[in-house]
């Protein structure tokens, strides 16, 4: 595999890590965030500080990045989680932009000029490894009472309260886990790019992540995986279109939203049992089709 394809896969993996977190928040808990690039930035700068200034090993540094993002999310969540629908959305948007603007002015991290010389620790192997762990954790969480409670919050907030679910607590838990995933993704990004610049974590990045989650299908982990790979690769496939590339991308987003709003997977999952079901149904269809002849 040449470095280009490898590079895209690494990027897809980094995006996936952030998207997994966002998927828990958006797909499973029903909260929409436009500030996840902010959490990525926090994670990225923290992890880079740990490896560059304190000479920590890579994995603990990443975890530290995730932790810092989670801590910050507690603060943000306290303030904003009680907001309804798109007001929460707008508040996260404000948070994301504010994070970037602060980083633009922190000369310790190089300010807007960026921070070069971060060691290149991110490899395809460790990205895949971390993603697999991320997926397992998420899948296990979803299929526990805690995950079910989050889904209940998404489906019907009032009814969740009535069956004894502490809605605020589960929203917060979801936001925290989601932010720590984004933080780890930011750390991976820092050690892949070997360079950090606040510009990298703009509103566009947050939007991109949300688009991936919706494209893959809300409430489907396998959808997020597919979405991250396809949508990271799409702009690369379109690369030869030069300046028309983003025109096509914008158009594609609209078309996806209006033609397949449930996303690629539409809430279904690729699991061994679902695959078995799919195949058996396909077989049945074939048999009836043949019988019809």
């Amino acid at each position, binding site marked *: 595999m040449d470095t280009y394809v490898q590079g895209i896969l690494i990027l897809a993996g980094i995006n996936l890590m952030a998207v997994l977190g966002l998927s828990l928040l958006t797909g499973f808990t029903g909260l929409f965030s436009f500030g996840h690039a902010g959490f990525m930035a926090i994670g990225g700068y923290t992890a880079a500080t740990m490896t560059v200034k304190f000479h920590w090993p890579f994995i603990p540094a990443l975890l530290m990045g995730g932790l810092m993002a989670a801590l910050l999310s507690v603060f943000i969540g306290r303030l904003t989680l009680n907001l309804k629908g798109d007001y929460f959305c707008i508040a996260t948007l404000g948070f994301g932009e504010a994070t970037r603007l602060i980083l633009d002015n922190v000369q310790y991290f190089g300010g807007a000029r960026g921070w070069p010389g971060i060691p290149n620790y991110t490899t395809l192997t460790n990205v895949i490894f971390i993603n697999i762990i991320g997926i397992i954790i998420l899948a296990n969480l979803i299929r526990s009472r805690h995950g079910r409670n989050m889904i209940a919050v998404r489906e019907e907030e009032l009814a969740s309260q009535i069956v004894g679910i502490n809605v605020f607590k589960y929203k917060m838990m979801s936001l925290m886990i989601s932010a720590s995933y984004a933080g780890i993704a930011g750390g991976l990004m820092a050690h892949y790019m070997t360079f950090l610049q606040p510009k990298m974590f703009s509103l566009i990045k947050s939007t991109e992540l949300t688009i991936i989650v919706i494209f893959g299908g809300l409430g489907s982990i396998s959808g997020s995986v597919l979405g991250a790979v396809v949508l990271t690769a799409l702009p690369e496939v379109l690369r030869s279109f030069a*300046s028309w590339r983003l025109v096509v991308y914008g158009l594609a987003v609209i078309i996806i939203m209006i033609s397949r*709003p449930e996303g690629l997977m539409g809430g279904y999952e690729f699991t061994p049992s679902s695959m078995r079901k799919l195949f058996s149904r396909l077989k049945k269809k074939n048999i009836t089709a043949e019988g019809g002849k």
Partner: protein
Amino acid sequence: MVQFLQQLINGLSIGSVYALMAVGYSLVYSIMNFSNFAHGGVIMFGAYFGFFFLTLFHFSFPVAFVSAALCTALLAVLIERTAYKPLRERKAPFLYFIICAMGASIFLENLVIAIPAIGPTFRTYPEIFSKEPFHLGLLTIGRLDVLMFIISAVCLALLVYFIDYTKVGKAIQATSYNIKASALMGINTDHIIIIIFALGGLFAGIAGVLFGMKYTVYPQIGMITNKSFIAAVFGGLGSLPGAVIGSILLGIIETFTSGYISSQYRDLIAFVLLIGILVVRPSGLMGKTTEDKA
């Protein structure tokens, strides 16, 4: 004192630019309950329409002004028909609208860049009004600022009249209060939505032309409209007076932050205020509050 007054004038003038843009956000929000991020792209098109009408077709200024506004109204309706209507019919959650709107704004901005005849260069309006400002003692007020202030005021007054005193306007009010009930009461909500987008587009065109005249025309105008969106949130999304007051307030807060605190952190303070106001009063200064009924 001079400094203070000058900053106040600066703030008012910036605020009135935001106000014209914010009205479009609020109009759409009042009916559709989502933040139409494609509005920035439409404003940008308005600026280009005005520019080309003036330079390429040599229209006189009033004609160019009006035709640009009509073109953007058409564009806004077109976007609604192609991008939002299918979602509306499917009763998609508001996020789909927002994502679709963002897709549309990426599309519009890059379309302008990709079309060779327009391209990424920025354009300058021919000088229609003298750039020489009025002087009041030590204070200066730009001619264009005064003009913009007047045009904004007149347009907003017309809009308020339209909404408060015409039949269509009343239907709009009813629809913004409760879209389902209005549909049951025999209001054609589909038409109302078209009218709302046309109005939003009209204001986008006006804002675009005035913006282009005052500053310049370039594909990334949409970026500045984010500020007007914040202004609309300040005032309370969906409320027209809120949008205007929020805009003026934001303009003044911004200038005083630059003038007396730190211009480096000006935008940061705007965002912190945004979060603050959402926490304290989510529906903004003048927004309508709704209580969830079980």
